[in-house]
């Protein structure tokens, strides 16, 4: 909850362990980058780096939302399917709006607005079912994951939904254009990350999330509206999914049953690699960002080299996750025995 810099009075032994947790993911990312550079100097070319950042924006944005859910002791498995369902509905609505509204900016705005409403709504449903319905978050989101996934398949009639060609032209810049040298998705990523960090670390809401994840009963006795805060974490997650979808749709201009597959796992992995505790009570937005970058970097490096097959991407990611969590564990033990 508090950043390392708040620990001015901490004793040396403790400071080193806290610092380790903060810089661990950063060091890992740095090492990955060095490996990438050694394998192929083109890794650090400007083109590749912006590509890498853009790619990590999707998972990164979703993972910022996941940090809130996990910090408050919940879990959301439905994000990948939710992204697919939202893209599907966006495409259908925009395609249908072409006749009445044309293929200009208003149609795209309609689609984006709709995405945001859907994301918030879907998040609220997850939240309400876990809090008011008193069903385990794992079960609720496992259920909605299946529902959303099958809905896209149904909308696309088993195939692919394609965005109207003219709208694609209007919408394209959202993914492909740059501002001050950085692609738009990266700016969205930065904005979401900053807002997320402020919300989690500097507001009462963030403190409440942490408190609930740490001990729900204590939170309730401390005048915190536990149900509302938990529901809001799912709403934030939904909103983040909307943002990710809005920048994702212009990339391919289509949605199908395979859109967003396994995004939930990558998002959760990014959160955990970043040092957020899976059982709740301790969240780090900065770590999550690094986690998302690490995951994307692995894939990117494998693309660049023949030493390891690209098909082993999942293996590398899996190893990194396990090692990251292992390091956090042993670090905690160290802190305790001192």
């Amino acid at each position, binding site marked *: *909850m*508090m950043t390392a810099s*708040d*620990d001015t*009075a*901490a*004793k*040396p*032994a*403790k400071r080193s362990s806290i610092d380790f947790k903060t810089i661990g993911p950063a060091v890992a990312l740095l090492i990955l980058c060095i490996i990438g550079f050694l394998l192929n100097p083109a890794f650090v070319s400007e083109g590749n780096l912006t590509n890498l950042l853009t790619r990590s924006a999707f998972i990164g944005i979703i993972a910022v939302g996941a940090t809130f859910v996990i910090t408050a002791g919940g879990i959301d498995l439905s994000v990948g399917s939710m992204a697919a369902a939202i893209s599907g509905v966006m495409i259908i609505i925009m395609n249908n709006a072409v006749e009445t509204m044309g293929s200009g900016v208003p149609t795209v705005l309609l689609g984006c607005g709709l995405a945001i409403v859907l994301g918030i709504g879907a998040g609220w449903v997850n939240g309400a079912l876990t809090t008011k319905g008193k069903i385990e978050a794992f079960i609720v989101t496992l259920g909605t994951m299946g529902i959303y996934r099958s809905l896209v398949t149904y909308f696309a009639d088993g195939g692919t939904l394609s965005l109207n060609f003219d709208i694609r032209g209007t919408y394209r810049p959202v993914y492909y254009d740059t501002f001050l040298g950085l692609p738009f998705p990266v700016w969205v990523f930065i904005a979401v990350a900053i807002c997320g960090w*402020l919300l989690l670390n*500097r*507001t*009462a809401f963030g*403190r*409440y999330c*942490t*408190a609930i994840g*740490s*001990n729900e*009963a*204590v*939170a*309730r*006795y*401390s*005048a*915190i*509206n536990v149900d509302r805060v938990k529901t809001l974490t799912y709403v934030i997650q939904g909103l983040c999914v909307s943002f990710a979808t809005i920048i994702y749709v212009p990339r391919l201009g289509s949605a199908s049953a395979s859109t967003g597959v396994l995004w939930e796992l990558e998002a959760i992995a990014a959160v955990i690699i970043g040092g957020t505790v899976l059982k709740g*009570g*301790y969240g780090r937005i900065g770590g999550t960002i690094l986690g998302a970058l690490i995951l994307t970097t692995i894939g990117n490096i494998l693309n660049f080299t023949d030493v390891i097959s690209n098909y082993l991407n999942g293996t590398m990611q899996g190893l990194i996750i396990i090692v990251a969590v292992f390091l956090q564990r042993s670090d905690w033990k160290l802190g305790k025995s*001192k």
Partner: protein
Amino acid sequence: MSVDTTAPAAVIEAVNISKSFGPVPVLFSVSMDVRPGEVHALIGENGAGKSTLMKILSGFHDPTSGQIRLDGKQTDLPPNGGAEKLGVVLIHQELNLAEQMTVEENVFLGRELKSNGFLDKAAMQATVRKYLDEIGLDISPTDRISDLTIAQKQMVEIVKAVSRNARILIMDEPTAVLTEEETQVFFRQVEKLKESGVGIVFVSHKLNEVKEIADRVTILRDGQWIDTRASSDLTPDMMAQMMVGRELSDLYPPMHEADVDAELVLEVQNLRAPSVNNVSFSLRKGEILGFSGLIGSGRTAVFEAICGLAPIEAGTIRLFGRDTGPTTVAQARDLGLAYLTKDRKEKGLLLDKKMRPNLTLFALPKFVRNFRLDSKAEEDALNRAIRRFDVRARDKEITVGKLSGGNQQKLLLAKIMECDPKIVIIDEPTRGIDVGTKQQIYHFIAALAAEGVSVVVISSEMPEIIGICHRVVVMREGHITGVLTGDHINENEIMRYAAGLKREELH
């Protein structure tokens, strides 16, 4: 150390034990020994290092220097409860039961009886039932721990230890959560263990109990060994003085007469809620109202309902003359009503967080400036609270779970007072608190009342109810059986109402 040459040889000995957590020293060359068949009490102020010493004696912590001798031989005790195999069993201050498992599963955890490779449930349940009958505990081996009261959980811990054939049984504040009656049952159990040659170490802040049950007493102050003496040489007053190192004035503050004409701040009529049956009472400005009764008589339930922590089924609640329907905890807080839970570990404090976020959690809206938390204001509040409530932490940055039990209680009190309530309900205000601090808390409560704050004290400790309350409500099985004032507030009267021998027709 005072060595009695005729005494049997010690089973376990701590010799010149020092302990530091990081750079923070907590124990300074402390020695203590336990003989078979004796009760050795360890007393000292909150944070004196009692729990730490107990954890070292049972292998949960390693000493920084010094030795542990078992039967005269130097031993490195195995960590994490492994010392149980050597016959050294610790019952933690914070109970250590698997909440979701049954009584029987907990008692046999880690050494289940088996027949043909399968668990022998029948045999285990029979054994546990035998122990439960012996101890006079009215629960079933198949009950889930989470459904038991704290007192029952405590007894289960004792059953668990007894069933492990302990040679040395170390108990950290076992009676803190027990009523006097339960304590007597517990002491009979301790006597039995003693007769069978078990050496018992017993930590308690209730000095009368120490006098009653202990053979020898060791006193710690600020991590230093002060003395070890036969308890027959000591009186509770002497113990208290040796603990705090100064003369203690009156434990209870002088009683100011309550103003019987003061306005009513809280009126409860025919309240029905879970475990609460048709309860009516009122509270005046500046009054200290005691709630007495046996554990489970519904005292806590009444106030959890009033403060929005439990649903209200029927009845009216008037706060400051206005009807309030069911409120949320936050609404109750904003109206000036605050409840301090008796269960500080489970409901009171975030044990894995530091003091600052814990202190400000209940009154957090107060610390918001422009949608952001004002960390400077939080820090100031912490410094103020540490001074006002004398919270003693050698290191301000440790997580709250590492504070000594009494200091956790003081921090919890500070947390609740942070919202400046006009009515505060304190459930078991001095559980696990040393005499010196008890005195501070009683004076604090009296001062609050003098300032016009109304205080409800729920307590199972009769003397404190009698010592500080203007008026006492006695409950039994969810009903109010009597309301006592003035000279009627005495142990006898309270017991008769609490036990249901006497009942007042309430107007």
